């Protein structure tokens, strides 16, 4: 064991020594850039890196450069916790932005709470900020808000009997659970819940079963990846005959391409990021959204997505709080984060308070409808 111990110490001391010289602000991040959640973690990482460089090129924060320390947890929450400990104990970061999956964020929270380090989470789950935790904030929309947006629209259209068809991944599971918990408040009855596997290529059977339900007015599909596109095509094939709703997980260019003409008339709650160009010039978010789109498309050559937008908001919220605090002291930054008021981000306009660490309301989502292969704003 001895040589191993020596090796352990020698190798692990190296990064420790490197951080000794510090006239910079260290911001930590743990993201799932490999593993099943990598399609979320990768754009988050790219966004953080691009924006950290931009901030530094523009003179940094309070005259100091920021330096990001990004670790990949391989989508494993236990790894997230290990890296969270490393960021706090070893790298001695002043703040953390990250946590791709809800489970990853939840596993890390106790570490930051105990150390007193502000943590801006990038995951969707409502459990992260409900109940409110002193050091934890998050910009992303929650599943519950997506449900509320869909249900509000259903109610307005008088379609109060709905059925779910959902995938089996974490996103879909969480969404359905949250939707069930708030359905009553909007007077929506959920008549059935069908599910399909992650590699299923045909959901006609489930849709046919749903279609036969008496009194059903609308179908909601909760999933990310290719599932929503397949459901949309199948629904068109069997002539579903009632409105189909997707979740914000389908709010991607990929969905439009895969689903093709079958997507006509499909509605979903989407972030403003997708329809930035269609917004009126008076919309306060328009400039931020167009800027972000331009920066990321230039740097990566890929279209922007909601999840990269979360990383943008998380980092800039922190930087904004640091500027207002006039220092990078964790406690002062936390206090300023909580005082964030009217901050224009990609997810919406954020106003935090001691009882609300999410800071956005339903207006952050827009009800979108697919018209001629493009997103159109309904509301």
């Amino acid at each position: 064991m001895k040589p191993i111990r020596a090796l352990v110490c020698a190798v692990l001391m190296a990064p420790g020594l490197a951080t000794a010289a510090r006239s910079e602000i260290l911001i930590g991040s743990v993201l799932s850039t490999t593993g099943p959640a990598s399609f979320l973690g990768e754009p988050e990482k790219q966004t953080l890196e691009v924006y950290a460089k931009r901030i530094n090129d523009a003179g940094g924060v309070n005259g100091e450069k920021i330096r990001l320390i990004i670790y990949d947890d391989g989508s494993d929450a236990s790894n997230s916790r290990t890296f969270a400990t490393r960021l706090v104990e070893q790298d001695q970061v002043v703040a953390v932005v990250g946590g791709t999956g809800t489970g990853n964020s939840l596993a890390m929270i106790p570490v930051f709470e105990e150390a007193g380090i502000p943590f801006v989470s990038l995951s969707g789950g409502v459990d992260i900020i409900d109940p409110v935790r002193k050091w934890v904030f998050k910009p992303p929309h929650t599943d519950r808000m997506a449900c509320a947006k869909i249900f509000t629209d259903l109610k307005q259209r008088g379609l109060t009997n709905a059925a779910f068809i959902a995938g089996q991944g974490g996103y879909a599971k969480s969404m359905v659970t949250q939707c069930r918990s708030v359905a009553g408040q909007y007077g929506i009855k959920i008549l059935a819940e069908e599910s399909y596997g992650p590699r299923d290529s045909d959901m006609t059977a489930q849709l046919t079963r749903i279609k036969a339900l008496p009194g059903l007015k609308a179908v909601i599909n909760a999933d990310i990846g290719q599932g929503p596109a397949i459901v949309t095509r199948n629904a068109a094939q069997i002539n579903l005959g009632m409105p189909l709703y997707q979740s914000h997980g389908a709010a991607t260019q990929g969905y439009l391409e895969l689903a093709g003409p079958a997507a006509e008339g499909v509605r979903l709650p989407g972030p403003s990021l997708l329809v930035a160009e269609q917004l009126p010039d008076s919309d306060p978010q328009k400039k931020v959204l167009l800027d972000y789109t331009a920066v990321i498309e230039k740097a990566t050559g890929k279209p922007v997505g909601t999840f990269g937008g979360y990383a943008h908001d998380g980092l800039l919220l922190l930087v904004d709080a640091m500027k207002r605090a006039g220092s990078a002291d964790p406690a002062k930054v936390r206090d300023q984060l909580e005082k964030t008021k009217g901050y224009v981000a990609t997810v919406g306009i954020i106003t935090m308070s001691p009882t609300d660490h999410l800071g956005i309301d339903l207006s952050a989502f827009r009800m979108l409808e697919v018209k001629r292969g493009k997103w159109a704003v309904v509301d």
Partner: protein
Amino acid sequence: MRRILANPYAPAFALAVVVVMVPLLVPSPFYLRLATLVFINALVVVGLNLLMGYAGQISLGHAAFFAMGAYASAIGPAHLGLPTLASMLAGIVLTGVVAYGVGKPILRFKGYHLAVATLGLGVIVSIVITNEIAWTGGPDGMQVARLWIGSWRVSGVANWYWVAGITLIVAMLGAANLLSSPTGRALRAIHDSEVAAGVLGIDVARYKLLVFVISAIYAATAGAFLALFDGHVTPVTGGILRSIEFVAMAVLGGLGSILGSVLGAAVLVVLPQALTSFHEFEHAILGAILMVLMIALRRGVIPSLQSWLLRGAA
């Protein structure tokens, strides 16, 4: 030298020295967390190594046992109102029973049927954990209540370091004891030749089953420790990749070597942390290091070094 290397209890004593020394040497609690993770993983691998190195059977589902221990400790207090300690112990016993049920019919066959059966078990456990949201919290996982032993609240790395370290030492002593008992001799006979062992009157299936159940219990204990240590558990804990990682740790350290199990766990827990500065190339470098080790030290690190040292001393 030869006598020290040949003493079956030597690895446990060597580890005891390390366990006492590490807290004095490391600069921050982060290293204690890493050491604790090494101990927890090593606990699984010591058990798995008994099965692979002595009973000659491969399990590709040890993460399932690991997860059963972990989720039992989480579900008991959250849904059944049981004390954490009681649900942890119940989970460990239950895992032993499941292993018995799976192993009993399978281990009567020769060959690698156990590998396939445990692979299936791993998939089933993984699906159940992911889908039974009401019980397990689904893919986002669930919080785990703190462990109380009497009035001692076992939490934080400083406590878990000692709990995991001492448990590992006890587990290694147990394994060494088992191996130097008549059971251990029977196991070695089975490993060399099942036919010959059977002719000598050894109940091959019974001994294999015994080792399989013991290794499952080790895994469940380790899983419970990880869940209680992290305070949060997700389905990744019981994923197929985790099972393969355990097998890799056992093979890397050396089949049939208890100390090798600890070393294998240490390498695969610490190396990814040490390689983070290589960013994108991290996984490629990790893979290359493992390949080189396995090519250069074919029987695993510890057995190869041991025979080299013994040759040098002779």
